[in-house]
């Protein structure tokens, strides 16, 4: 077919227009070899489009094992898919494409073997973008009206599109060109939009049909998760994740935020987005949290937004770390927080060592109904390793030896004076163990009865002061330790 020079000029002007549009709207997406464009004689123009895929919002992306590794011994590994990038530049048909990847598999046997073993892996991610698809086009002088663009290469960064999908996309480039030609336009702008907005996703059946959504209509339904078949999901997943995170953070760094604390605008790089998505400048937050930590008000170390303050959402450790920077301040924050946490726990007692005083927790959560052993009195201070009895606070004296009554008396009396089921009793029970305190109370009551009986029915032997039961009337009582027959006389020394 002969093409007139007017036609060629028209083509050149359409091309020039569309390149200008693409370059001005997405300067980062396109690289043009300008030679052909500016030269006197019409020649091929080459353009490389690096088109990131914007999913609009965070969506679930499932990477499923496409079974290539399991199916053949000469499996396609991600390492080899990456070689596609070079392979594609030489060959154009999808048939050749696969052959290239197969031969390229061999230099990388290690990854093929290690991942061939675990088949049918699926990785699920939350992403808002996918790595760019890179299209290298050669545009002949008769493009776009009379000749299609020549695809020098088409591949995806990190090879997240499997070879078969790449060939589908290639075919789509030509059909798009055909559509655009009918309306007298070039394909570049359309192609960039098509990839960038993710319009190709439903057409390449990357939507997860199992989720019950109809993939027949080609609009992206936001609820439908993406399904990307890939030879090695476990290798691809971290790369996609990293790309997404990198993109998000570089976008964040470029944006400008108005810090609600200093009321001044700051570049994203000087700001931090907390896990609740509120953004503050790091300087203000450092000052605020630093003041709170210095004054011991760690309860206030949280997102300053009103909602978060009301909700009591505390700051996370990595947030405090990235804001405060000073390791000593972070340590202090953690220390006070831990202390408050421990002091909230009613089972906590303080280490009796005067120089230590560290809070000591009950070793395990004991159900109240559960039988407590005498070992339950044992506490070991995590800070100074001192092992002690929780009741008498003295060095651990084993499960059998009882605590001296003089030490346990105060809180036994306190416990008994509090009414049954009073909060005071509950508190003591929780701190010392219900069974422990009940045993002590029983022993105390027995002791008391004993004492009462001794007072009433015994008297001390005047010679050795051993209490002797007055069994047969005072005059009949006999001290068993003295010589038989020695009588206890009334009016003998007072009992002690």
């Amino acid at each position: 077919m002969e093409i007139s020079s007017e036609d060629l000029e028209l083509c050149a002007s359409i091309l020039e227009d569309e390149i200008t549009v693409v370059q001005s709207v997405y300067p980062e997406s396109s690289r043009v070899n300008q030679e052909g464009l500016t030269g006197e004689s019409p020649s091929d123009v080459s353009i490389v489009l690096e088109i990131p895929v914007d999913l609009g919002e965070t969506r679930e992306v499932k990477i499923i094992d496409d079974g290539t590794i399991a199916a053949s011994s000469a499996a396609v590994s991600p390492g080899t898919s990456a070689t596609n990038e070079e392979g594609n530049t030489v060959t154009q048909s999808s048939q050749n494409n696969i052959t290239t990847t197969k031969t390229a598999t061999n230099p990388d046997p290690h990854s093929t073997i290690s991942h061939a073993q675990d088949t049918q892996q699926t990785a699920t991610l939350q992403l808002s973008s996918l790595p760019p698809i890179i299209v290298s086009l050669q545009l002949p002088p008769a493009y776009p009206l009379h000749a299609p663009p020549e695809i020098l290469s088409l591949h995806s960064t990190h090879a997240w599109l499997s070879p078969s999908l790449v060939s589908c996309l290639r075919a789509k480039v030509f059909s798009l060109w055909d559509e655009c030609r009918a309306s007298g336009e070039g394909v570049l702008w359309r192609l960039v939009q098509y990839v960038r907005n993710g319009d190709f996703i439903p057409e390449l059946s990357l939507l997860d049909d199992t989720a019950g959504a109809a993939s027949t209509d080609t609009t992206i339904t936001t609820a439908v998760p993406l399904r990307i078949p890939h030879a090695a999901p476990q290798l691809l997943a971290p790369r996609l994740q990293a790309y997404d995170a990198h993109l998000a953070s570089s976008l964040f760094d470029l944006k400008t935020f108005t810090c609600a604390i200093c009321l001044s605008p700051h570049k994203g790089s000087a700001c931090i987005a907390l896990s609740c998505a509120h953004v503050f400048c790091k300087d203000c937050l450092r000052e605020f949290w630093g003041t709170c930590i210095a004054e011991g008000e760690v309860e206030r170390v949280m997102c300053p937004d009103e909602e978060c303050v009301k909700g009591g959402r505390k700051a996370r450790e990595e947030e405090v770390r990235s804001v405060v920077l000073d390791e000593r301040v972070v340590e202090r924050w953690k220390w006070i927080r831990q202390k408050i946490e421990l002091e909230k726990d009613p089972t906590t007692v303080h280490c009796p060592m005067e120089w230590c005083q560290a809070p000591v927790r009950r070793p395990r959560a004991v159900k109240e109904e559960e039988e407590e052993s005498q070992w339950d009195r044992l506490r070991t201070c995590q800070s100074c390793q001192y092992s002690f009895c929780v009741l008498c606070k003295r060095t651990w004296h084993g499960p059998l030896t009882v605590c001296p009554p003089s030490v346990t008396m105060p809180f036994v009396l306190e416990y008994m004076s509090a009414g049954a089921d009073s909060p005071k009793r509950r508190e003591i029970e929780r701190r010392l163990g219900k069974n422990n305190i009940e045993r002590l109370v029983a022993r105390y009551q027995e002791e008391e009865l004993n004492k009462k009986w001794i007072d009433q029915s015994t008297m001390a032997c005047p010679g050795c002061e051993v209490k002797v039961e007055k069994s047969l009337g005072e005059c009949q009582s006999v001290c068993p330790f003295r010589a038989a027959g020695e009588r206890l006389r009334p009016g003998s020394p007072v009992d002690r």
Partner: protein
Amino acid sequence: MADARTRRVKKEIQDIQNDRQAGLTIELVNDSIFHLIGSFPGPPGTCYEGGKFDVDIVVPETYPFVALKMKFLSKVYHPNISSASGAICLDILKDNWSPILTLKSTLISLQSLLCTPEPNDPQDAEVAKHYLTSKSSFEETARYWTETYARPQTNEGRGAPSGTSKTSHLPTVRDEVAMAGLERAHVEQFEALGFERGRVIEVLKRINYRGANVPKISEDTVVEELLK
């Protein structure tokens, strides 16, 4: 940091001055931007409607990381505001302070505090008792206080502890009794027994001799209290 504080406070003052819609005003005291007098209109549809309430604001050294110090200069009859000193019981001025709160948002919070009294967490126990006993009588008193102390375009009542001297155009008798939210008949009843009016008002106020409480408190109890 000090200049960051200055910058922020200046911005906040400007913000209030630019926004005429909210009806807030802010003035400097002794030309210092760290001691201010803010004011806001009483919320419509409440017993504070039509009033203009002045608030003394001190911006602390470590602002905005610690709360603004605020107290009412206009006398307000409200369970969470001291009727004597103007001290305010509001969570965001205490534990729930956050550095993103500003002069404007705090003044608006005070305005909304007037709409939503919290009698269970009172600053002024007598007022709170009054509120819980008889809401209609409380509202009447609060309205009276608003008319007396918080009238716009006058400085009347600002920080003045005694209402009588400033409101000479109103009958003094009505004044004192209404100010305490009591029934005139009750006051006169005990006054007739030979007790001083001031003393009667003080005691009746303290024992909350209002509405549903009146039948519960015997006259003898009141007289005993008066004689103490």
